[in-house]
């Protein structure tokens, strides 16, 4: 059984040991500025008190976990408190999400602008490489080689972020995408930039070309872009 001792001269009656002890071994002494050991036999040897005591006047010897700690009701409640069984996200409101989204917008724009500032035209290659790398995380897309099926798969995959209608020419050399909605539109306009020509849009276009190329095994490149009302993009196989 663990032995718990308090060096009385050092105790400042901060009450931390009383508060932290999961088995209520300590109590504050009425009228005296010190804690005392009242239920030594209940000590489970967790040594929380030793680590917490600011005066270092506590010692626990012969400490071994001797009881089914998790089965004790009070400890189960304590564990549950520490584990925070209510997920943090459930405590957030719409305003918190909006604020977090705004932060994400700023971060995305800063990242795209930094890439453009440092890499200049080389930014395109980075976007394309990102598409190639991302493709590896969507293995299901490799199951078809038909561009029409592939575009349908990509639409389903990305529907939460953006939607598009795809027109694939019979020989598959040209794919036209019309985006009625895109999560980036909001990001770009919120930052006062023009949809389609913003750095972030350029990065995304190349990213998408990279994805299409990786899945189809052909080198698609952004051939044309129109942004009147909605983005219309034409991808072509590079000669």
């Amino acid at each position, binding site marked *: 059984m663990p032995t718990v001792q308090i060096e009385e001269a050092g105790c400042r009656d901060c009450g931390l040991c009383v508060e932290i002890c999961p088995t209520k071994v300590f109590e504050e002494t009425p009228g005296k500025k010190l804690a005392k050991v009242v239920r030594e036999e209940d000590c489970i040897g967790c040594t929380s008190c030793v680590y917490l005591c600011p005066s270092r006047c506590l010692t626990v010897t012969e400490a071994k976990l001797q009881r089914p700690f998790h089965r004790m009701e009070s400890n189960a409640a304590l564990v549950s408190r520490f584990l925070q069984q209510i997920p943090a996200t459930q405590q957030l409101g719409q305003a918190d999400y909006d604020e977090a989204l705004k932060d994400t917008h700023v971060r995305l724009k800063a990242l795209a602008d930094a890439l453009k*500032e*440092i*890499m*200049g*035209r*080389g*930014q*395109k*290659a*980075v976007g*394309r*490489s990102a598409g*190639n790398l991302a493709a590896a995380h969507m293995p299901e897309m490799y199951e078809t080689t038909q561009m029409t099926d592939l575009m349908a798969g990509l639409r389903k995959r990305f529907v939460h972020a953006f939607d598009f209608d795809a027109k694939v020419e019979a020989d598959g050399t040209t794919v036209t995408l019309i985006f009625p909605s895109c999560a980036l539109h909001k990001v770009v306009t919120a930052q006062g930039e023009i949809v389609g020509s913003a750095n972030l849009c350029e990065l995304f276009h*190349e990213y998408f070309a990279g994805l299409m190329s990786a899945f189809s095994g052909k*080198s698609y*490149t*952004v051939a044309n872009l129109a942004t009147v009302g909605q983005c219309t993009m034409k991808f072509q196989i*590079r000669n």
Partner: protein
Amino acid sequence: MASRTEKMQDILRGLRGASPDIIGAAVVSIDGFIVASVLPAEVDEELVSGMAAAMLGVGERISSELMASVMEQVYVRSEKGYVVLNAVGADSVLVVLTSKDAKLGLVFIEVKRRCAELGKAIAASA
């Protein structure tokens, strides 16, 4: 009649044959595509093309910011040799790999000559 890629491939073979110290070469577009290549088999062409295009971009930026002029060439020296990147036309870059014993002056002359030929091949097909 030879296609543009075949012409460029011929020019690159000529460049590689010009010196035993030239290990390989490739023409890469600014958006990261390999246009023509005579790189060693173990080189990942896709990766090299992306990196070369990115490096061309960085080279252009640093040249315009620090020198207020147009970038012509970037070269990287490592323990095993050199990588030389030279702009070709407006939208491509020639990547040349050499051994550490290469005489850089000669390599640069050869690169300059081949870049002119490559530029003509690109312009003719535009």
